[in-house]
């Protein structure tokens, strides 16, 4: 049987009786109408706006900026509200930075020098987790010093801790409230969705406006980004406490507060710890991006590498970030499973041995901390042992070699892709009359997402037109959609391979985990070297950034197709290829939709950051608005447009996802099971968003 026969047969089995499914016909008609309209009304009503032009709305935002600058010291709104928040957050981050990075007095050594920090965190890892993660922690932190990045790493760590502190301070109580009351949850969920759709890059400028640049703004930006996971998972944990236990507690006649404190929280502990894990990881990723608003730490060398085309510097800093991410991830994950392990271990000897070991470790820690405060070698990481420079040189040599050797391929690839795929598609979006494009988008939203999704899309598009950035939005949309398609192709190929073979899964998954811990703009540097500053660079970086999430979701979807079905198909003599096309992919349709949804959000975030490397459009507007006073308003408007694009794409794909989930025959994985699966891997980015995406019908 040929491939086309297989495909058509599979379509037939899915749609029953209909040869060509209705949606294919409709999409084809829409595209034909669009093409005709584009040719007939080329460059008519396509709302262009020159790079240097601003609309009255943008100029009005400029005036707002000027007002804030002029009244920052006198307006009560700033003096009593924003400045107070800034002071409290700033003070807290200073405490952490004095502890780990530097103080203001004397030699400006931190309160705890490197030796003290290494021993202390190792001991904490053992105390909270187990000896394995303690060893990992010790090696990891020593590596940070050996890379020559001790101080920068500690600055990043201090900011991360400060941000996590505030995220938990706000997130856990809000999460408890949302877990107890459906009404609170209904109010809070769209807010959390919004916080997570927002590409982090976008809110740096408004925050710098309100709280000015520096660590305080960086911490606040990070809390916005990292707060949602712990909030969601706290609510989830509280909600999933079995009703019988809660009722049993009620029958004992304990009060409301006591019930939360003694029954619900301990039982929700595991879920909350997963939330903390994800919050820590998200905070680490965001703290790096905050280098753009002068946040100290490892983001600085990454940014510097981007600006001086120095792949080596950026790589070494990125490597340090990954090390820190792995350590933090494993320690928080181990802390999450610790309670269950100790509960299962009934051997009292083990417990006593551990307790004695921990006490001995504590003594050692106190000694190390004391040393790191009294002798110089233990306070300042020795600069003589440093292989960061050598590593950076080696990476640069390698990247130069790759660039020179493969430049004919990379340049050809870039040009070919841009001329034959990207430019025509972008032209369709930017040169057609805007009304036509709006109608096309609404038709697709209606078809896949339904009336509600179409209504939201209409509202989003209206805002985009109102803020005056239609053309730039369409350029960004073109790159985003193409990158998402590429992501999904990659996701399906690798995801199916992983889903079908446990061995391939084991081989690839650690790589995906590591890739996800890399902060987004680390990805830009190598591709900038390979492809130069262009939209293509941003698209490639976006695909690489978004692929791990899509791959994992699809792999999990393929795995969850019931074994009996697959075996039945195989015993009836289908080839592996047929099994994939006819059984495994159709049955993991809801996973595919979820992967598309997540892929889109990740791709959009990255395409926007691509503004830093010549990708132009909305991303460039945001960057330019951030650095040029006269374009401030336009940049802020671009931020709004990005958010609108994000909400629109999210709603359409989510609605499409929940529709497929209702189709009989498609797999619906119980949320809790999926949840456990995630937990074991200790991944971060995706689980929180699983919660927002209605997987089950």
């Amino acid at each position: 049987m040929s491939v086309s026969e297989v495909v058509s047969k599979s379509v037939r089995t899915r749609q029953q009786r209909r040869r060509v499914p209705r949606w294919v016909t409709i999409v084809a008609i829409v595209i034909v109408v669009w093409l005709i309209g584009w040719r007939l009304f080329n460059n008519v009503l396509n709302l262009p706006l020159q790079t240097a032009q601003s609309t009255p709305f943008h100029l009005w935002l400029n005036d707002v900026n000027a007002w804030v600058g002029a009244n920052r010291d006198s307006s009560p709104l700033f003096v009593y509200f924003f400045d107070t928040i800034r002071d409290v957050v700033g003070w807290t981050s200073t405490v952490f930075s004095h502890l780990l990075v530097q103080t203001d007095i004397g030699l400006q050594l931190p309160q705890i020098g490197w030796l003290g920090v290494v021993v202390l965190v190792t001991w904490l890892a053992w105390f909270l987790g187990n000896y394995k993660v303690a060893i990992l922690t010790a090696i990891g932190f020593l590596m940070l010093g050996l890379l020559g990045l001790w101080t920068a790493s500690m600055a990043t760590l201090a900011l991360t801790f400060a941000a996590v502190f505030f995220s938990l301070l706000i997130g856990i109580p809000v999460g408890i409230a949302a877990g107890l009351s459906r009404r609170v949850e209904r109010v809070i969920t769209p807010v959390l969705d919004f916080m997570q759709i927002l590409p982090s890059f976008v809110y740096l400028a408004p925050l710098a406006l309100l709280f000015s640049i520096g660590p305080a703004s960086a911490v606040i930006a990070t809390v916005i980004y990292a707060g949602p996971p712990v909030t969601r998972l706290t609510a989830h944990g509280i909600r999933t406490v079995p009703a019988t236990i809660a009722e049993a507690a009620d029958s004992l006649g304990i009060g409301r507060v006591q019930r939360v404190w003694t029954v619900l929280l301990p039982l929700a502990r595991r879920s909350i710890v997963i939330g903390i894990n994800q919050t820590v990881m998200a905070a680490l990723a965001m703290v790096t991006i905050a280098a753009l608003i002068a946040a100290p730490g490892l983001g600085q060398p990454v940014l510097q590498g981007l600006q001086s085309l120095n792949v080596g510097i950026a790589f070494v800093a990125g490597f340090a970030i990954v090390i820190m991410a792995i350590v933090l991830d494993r320690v928080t994950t181990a802390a999450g499973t610790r309670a269950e392990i100790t509960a299962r271990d009934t051997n009292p000897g083990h417990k006593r041995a551990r307790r004695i070991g921990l006490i001995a470790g504590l003594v050692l820690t106190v000694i190390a901390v004391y040393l790191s405060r009294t002798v110089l070698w233990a306070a300042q990481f020795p600069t003589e042992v440093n292989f960061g420079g050598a590593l950076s040189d080696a990476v640069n040599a390698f990247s130069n070699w790759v660039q020179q050797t493969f430049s004919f391929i990379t340049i050809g690839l870039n040009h070919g892709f841009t001329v034959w795929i990207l430019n025509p598609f972008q032209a369709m979006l930017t040169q057609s009359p805007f009304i036509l494009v709006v109608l096309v988008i609404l038709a697709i939203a209606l078809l896949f997402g339904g009336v509600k999704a179409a209504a939201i899309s209409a509202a989003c598009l209206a805002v985009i037109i109102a803020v005056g950035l239609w053309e730039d939005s369409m350029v960004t949309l073109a790159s985003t959609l193409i990158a998402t398609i590429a992501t999904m192709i990659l996701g399906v190929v690798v995801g199916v391979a992983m889903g079908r073979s446990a061995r391939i899964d084991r081989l690839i998954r650690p790589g995906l985990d590591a890739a996800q811990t890399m902060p987004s703009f680390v990805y830009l540097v190598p591709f900038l070297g390979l492809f130069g500053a262009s939209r293509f660079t941003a698209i490639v970086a976006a695909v690489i950034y978004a692929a791990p999430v899509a791959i994992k979701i699809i792999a999990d979807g393929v795995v969850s197709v019931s074994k009996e079905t697959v075996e039945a198909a195989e015993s009836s003599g289908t080839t592996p290829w047929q099994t994939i096309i006819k059984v495994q992919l159709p049955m993991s349709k809801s996973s595919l939709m979820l992967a598309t949804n997540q892929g889109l959000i990740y791709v959009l975030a990255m395409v926007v950051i691509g503004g830093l490397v010549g990708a132009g459009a909305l991303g460039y507007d945001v960057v330019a608005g951030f650095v040029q006073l006269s374009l401030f308003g336009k940049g802020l408007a671009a931020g709004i447009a990005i958010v609108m694009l994000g909400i629109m794409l999210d709603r359409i794909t989510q609605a499409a996802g929940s529709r497929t989930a209702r189709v009989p025959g498609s797999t619906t994985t119980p949320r809790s099971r999926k949840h456990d699966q995630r937990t074991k891997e200790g991944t971060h980015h995706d689980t929180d968003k699983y919660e927002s995406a209605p997987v089950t019908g």
Partner: protein
Amino acid sequence: MTLTSTSRRRLLGSAAVLTATLLAITGCSSSLNTGSDSTAAASKCGNVNLAMSDWVGYTADAAVYTYVAQTRLKCTVKQLPLAEQVGWQGLGDGTVDAIIENWGHDDLAKKYITEQKVAVDAGLTGNIGKIGWFVPPWLAKAHPDILDASNLNKYATNFKTPESGGLGQFLDGDPSFVTNDAALVTNLKLNYKVVYAGSEAALIQAFRTAEANKTWMIGYFYTPNWFLSEVALKSVKLPPYTDGCDAVAAAVACDYPTDKLNKIMSVKFEKANKPAADLLKNFHWTNDDQNEVAKDITANKMTPAAAAKKWVDANKSKVDAWLK
């Protein structure tokens, strides 16, 4: 309920440990910091928060200032990598003390120096800056009339790239650099599109490749810049600059002004840290000096600090004059 009591015991345990750790930290004050406090107290110079823009000329100025301030005045200089305008904003809210190479920015000077009175001019650096449009030397030689902007439309198709949407490509650097190029292209009715390379380094790389492969390229560049001694880019004539012709950003149709580059510092810094502020005011050198240091940093791959040390050692008399 065993679970509850275990978790509570663990909670108490953690609390005890944390308290113990904190006691260990705060109980005895670090002897290292306090012990050396005397040396810090001896010099009157404190912290300097220096904004760091990302073109190499700026890095050169900042490296030399930092080296002299640290070695001769024992100041603590913190370099904060910031885009130009963000640096100005920092002067306003106290996060930045000084900007060491400022290119014009009349709008910002008006806002922060004249209106808000949070910053002051700290004098000229001695460098004369000029932004302009440039082509690689081979192109100027092959088509001499290209050196006048009024002839650019004739060649627009030669500058076409996949990124420029059917128009000629005009390459800009970092989005944060002072540029009127997008407005100039529109207002001079040129069939070009401004495309951003993203950084100074990317721009230099593009010019280098264009000269080596004899490809068509036109872009934004500026003097002083060490790169001009490697590839002698030729400037393209724009309609002459007259006072105020660049007042409205979107309506500019004239050449860039010749900027006498200067230094800016916050009012607070001038009062609070006199030695460092005086050094900033006295800092003065030539385009050749800057190019020498910049070239060591880029082409010779020295660290900024090492390049600064080399220049300071070779120019003792100049440095002594700054510290008079």
